[in-house]
């Protein structure tokens, strides 16, 4: 832009009708900011038609008053000076919508977190700052233009990454709602952990039978395509219209497919914790992890045997690799108590004389698994609770058996040594190493290493990356049932995105002024979303921004040497005007 509007040049500013509301927030604001003084200072600003100071701007009654003002006074701009936009920007945008005012002609000014709460010692200073901030808001609003959401067509097809129980069940669910499905599995066969398991809790159904049933169902569906020994290796495009690059690892060499999908469900599962050498005796012959033990029980017929030797006694040490002190794995894996108890019942059924000791910190066999806990006790399992700060120790006894030394809180803190044939370390879940995929999809990781959802209760399968959903244990430890449930939630969310056939995107995106762009392409490398591509225009090369993949971060704006890029809703002109207003001498 060769000519910038001058904030002092009133002629350049269109006449507007703006309403300004300064909120008391009960006393949160008015205790430290002279709200009336702010209103006084603002009421005579150019284009300010309405100025009010409600006790609570967000209250239903106040919102109704605002709607009446917008309607009655024909307002075309709105400023609410209250709390952080994180709290109520959506509230007032929705209210604007209801009043027939373009929601992007609304500006929220934060005079609580940034003013009253920050300057409780200086009422005069806080008031002066608030006046400046509200003036800036009004100045920005004065230059606002109505914006409409961007509508993009979406592809009715979902890519499921991971062919475990969550991914496979989700695939069927997606097909059920009428979406095409692609399943990509890194290993040579579908099924994941569950596909390797025999009987599992709660009802003894074999994991591999459950997986076989899902795979048979998938095979019968024409709208589900599965790829094994395959990985998602590239992703481009934007929400609703992703282009997924899938690499198939084949004997004759890798083969790359590019497929269009509307959404992606990541269900990449977990890894089991691998104890360190010496951790609870790991490394000593006869000390095994839970998955190893499960395989051992399933392979035993008649009697429980290991390496040809009969196992007559087993000690289970719970919470291995979980519930550790920070910076270890502080979380609980949820499934392991029930899984171990269930496995001990399998052992009792195999050979009722096997003596089983469960060394735990707490038994978290919650919900219906409580019944398994009772059943295992009645079958002869003994539970010993050890103090958190005195974990059991495993060593070899002189007679060759394993000796597990444990302090039992229920035997008056007696230190007991249990001579057993086998020690099972009840290993929990750890996040699966998946750096390539994580970086590719830009998925956020929690401090625990699992993928983060947006909201643990209200948006449990969505991520901050639009159209990319998470399901199953890649998000955190779950039982198989819970994994499937989260997979189905991801199905519902995929349908919510794709079934309309289009998606509405926030219009706060960057745009290029074609005449000003010289085609230097400095902006391309500044864009973290690969949204900027060179196009040919009027005989020369210029930058073009794909509105559907632009997040409106503004990273491209300052790098443009020609000031050819503007961010809608936050244009250079608006920001200059706001700054000018902010630094203007306060009135009174």
């Amino acid at each position, binding site marked *: 832009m060769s000519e910038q509007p001058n904030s002092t040049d009133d002629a350049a500013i269109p006449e507007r009708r703006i309403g300004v509301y300064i909120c008391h927030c009960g006393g949160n604001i008015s205790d430290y900011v002279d709200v009336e003084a702010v209103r006084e200072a603002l009421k005579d600003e150019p284009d300010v038609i309405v100025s009010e100071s409600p006790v609570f701007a967000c209250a239903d009654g106040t919102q109704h008053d605002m709607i009446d003002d917008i309607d009655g006074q024909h307002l075309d701009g709105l400023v609410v000076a209250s709390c952080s936009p994180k709290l109520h920007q959506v509230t007032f945008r929705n209210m604007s919508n209801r009043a027939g005012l373009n929601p992007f002609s609304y500006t929220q000014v934060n005079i609580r977190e940034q003013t009253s709460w920050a300057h409780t010692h200086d009422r005069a200073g806080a008031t002066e700052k608030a006046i400046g901030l509200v003036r800036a808001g009004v100045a920005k609003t004065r230059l606002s233009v109505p914006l409409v959401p961007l509508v993009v067509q979406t592809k009715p097809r979902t890519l499921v990454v991971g062919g475990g129980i969550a991914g496979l069940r989700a695939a069927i669910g997606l097909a059920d709602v009428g979406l095409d499905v692609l399943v990509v599995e890194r290993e040579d066969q579908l099924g994941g952990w569950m596909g390797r398991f025999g009987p599992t809790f709660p009802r003894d159904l074999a994991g591999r039978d459950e997986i076989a049933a899902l795979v048979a169902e998938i095979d019968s569906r024409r709208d589900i395509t599965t790829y094994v020994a395959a990985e998602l290796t590239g992703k481009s495009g934007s929400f609703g219209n992703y282009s997924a690059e899938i690499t198939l690892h084949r004997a004759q060499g890798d083969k790359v497919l590019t497929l269009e999908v509307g959404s992606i469900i990541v269900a990449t599962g977990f890894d089991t914790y691998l104890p360190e050498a010496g951790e609870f005796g790991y490394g000593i012959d006869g000390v095994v992890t839970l998955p190893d033990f499960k395989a051992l029980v399933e392979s035993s017929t008649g009697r429980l045997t290991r390496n040809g030797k009969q196992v*007559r*006694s087993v000690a289970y040490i719970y919470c291995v690799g979980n519930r550790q002190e920070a910076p270890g794995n502080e979380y609980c894996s949820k499934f392991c108590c029930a899984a171990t108890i269930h496995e001990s019942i399998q052992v009792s059924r195999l050979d009722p*004389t096997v*003596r089983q*000791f469960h060394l735990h910190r707490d038994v978290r066999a919650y919900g219906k698994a409580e019944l398994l806990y*009772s059943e295992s*006790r*009645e*079958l*002869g399992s*003994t*539970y*010993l609770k050890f103090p958190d700060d005195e974990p059991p120790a495993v060593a070899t006894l002189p007679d060759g058996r394993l*000796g597990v*030394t444990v302090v*039992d809180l*229920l*035997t*008056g803190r*007696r*230190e*007991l*040594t*249990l*001579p*057993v044939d086998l020690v099972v370390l009840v290993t929990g879940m750890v996040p699966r190493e998946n750096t390539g995929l994580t970086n590719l999809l830009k998925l956020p990781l929690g401090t625990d290493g699992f993928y983060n959802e947006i909201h643990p209760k209200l948006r449990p399968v969505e991520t901050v990356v639009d159209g990319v959903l998470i399901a199953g244990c890649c998000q955190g430890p779950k039982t198989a049932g819970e994994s499937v449930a989260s997979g189905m939630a991801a199905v519902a969310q995929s349908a919510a995105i794709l079934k309309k056939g289009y998606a509405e995107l926030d219009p706060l995106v960057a745009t290029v002024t074609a005449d000003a762009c010289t085609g230097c392409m400095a902006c391309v490398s500044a864009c973290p979303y690969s949204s900027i591509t060179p196009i040919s225009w009027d005989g020369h090369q210029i930058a073009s921004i794909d509105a559907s993949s632009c997040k409106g971060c503004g990273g491209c704006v300052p790098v443009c040497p020609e000031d050819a890029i503007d961010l809608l809703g936050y244009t250079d002109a608006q920001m200059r005007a706001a700054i000018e207003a902010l630094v203007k001498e306060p009135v009174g």
Partner: protein
Amino acid sequence: MSTLIDPGLMGDVLKFGAADVTACYSCGNCTATCPLADNDASFPRGIIRLAQVGLTDDLVSSKELWTCYQCGECTTKCPTQADPAEFMATSRRYAIAHYDKSGLARVFATKPAVGWLLVVVFAAIFAGFFMTVRGPADANALVLFDFIPYPVIHWTGIGVMVLVAVFAVWGVASLARDMARKDQVTWKELTGSAEGRRRASKALWYSLGIESLGQRRYREDCVDSAPIEPLYRRRWLIHALTLWGFLGLMLATGLDYGLDVAGIKATGTPVPLWYPTRALGTVAGLALLYGVTWFIIKRIQRAGVASRTSTPMDWMFLGLLWVTGLTGFLIEVALYVTPAPTWGYWVFLVHVAIALELVLFLPFTKFAHAMYRPVGLFFYSLAKQRTDAG
């Protein structure tokens, strides 16, 4: 100090009964509800736990086993139907078997068929022996000690008692040693000072006098001894009558022997019913028969938690006591009937055989509680005195 546990303990204990105890998850309701449990003897939870984790020595030497009178309140309040009362009874059987070095008690408790066979075989041996050595059966008057010569009974009895004494002393001494070790009570501590001797005497009086003879806590604290039951069938009373009756009969026999030795009255001399030793024997016998009969009725009726579960060991003990008591009475009836009935001789033979068997089996049957309970109560009193002294 870590204790090496015995993984097989619970499995072994379960052979003695208490099938439901595996449901126990150590909540402690039983101990909280037990009217007899206190800091000096905390049970049943803690005792169940010993079996669960495999602490054999701790289990068998628990004085708590012998401070429990099996009222069953714990079982009533158990949230998992683990039947802690039955576990306590089972553990007592286990402890009796543990301290019986002959192995007979284990057979009686865990192999009932073999146990009953042994009862029959031993009775037959005694009866056969007396049949073999029997003398003439006078048809005019019952001259019992001609039929089975008095010296034969006398010396057989002495022989049986010596044998019993060996096993009884062995068992009681072993239990006392183990309990002393567990509670860190030393011989020196009990006998080395006047204070120690005073405490030991007090414990002895508590154990034998107040509790065994006086049945104080059984009478006052046990829930099922509360006056919900009519007095005549209250457990403490029928137990007391059985005990007092048995002791009365022992006393009468002893006095009769004393009179013989003193030359006042030869054993077997016909005496009137009011003759002091005869009168004592009659009253004591009635008390014993009354008590034992009620115990049998209660077990048949399964009245209350204490009588709900009956093992062969319970029936064996009650059966021998009852047959001994009943045949004793029949003999007394026969003695005062004219003309003397000849069946009196055969009842006498059965009576002597079964009575000797009852005494012979003392350390191996439920009868053994009479030896071990006072030991437990003795150490309980010592512990209590220690606590009270601070």
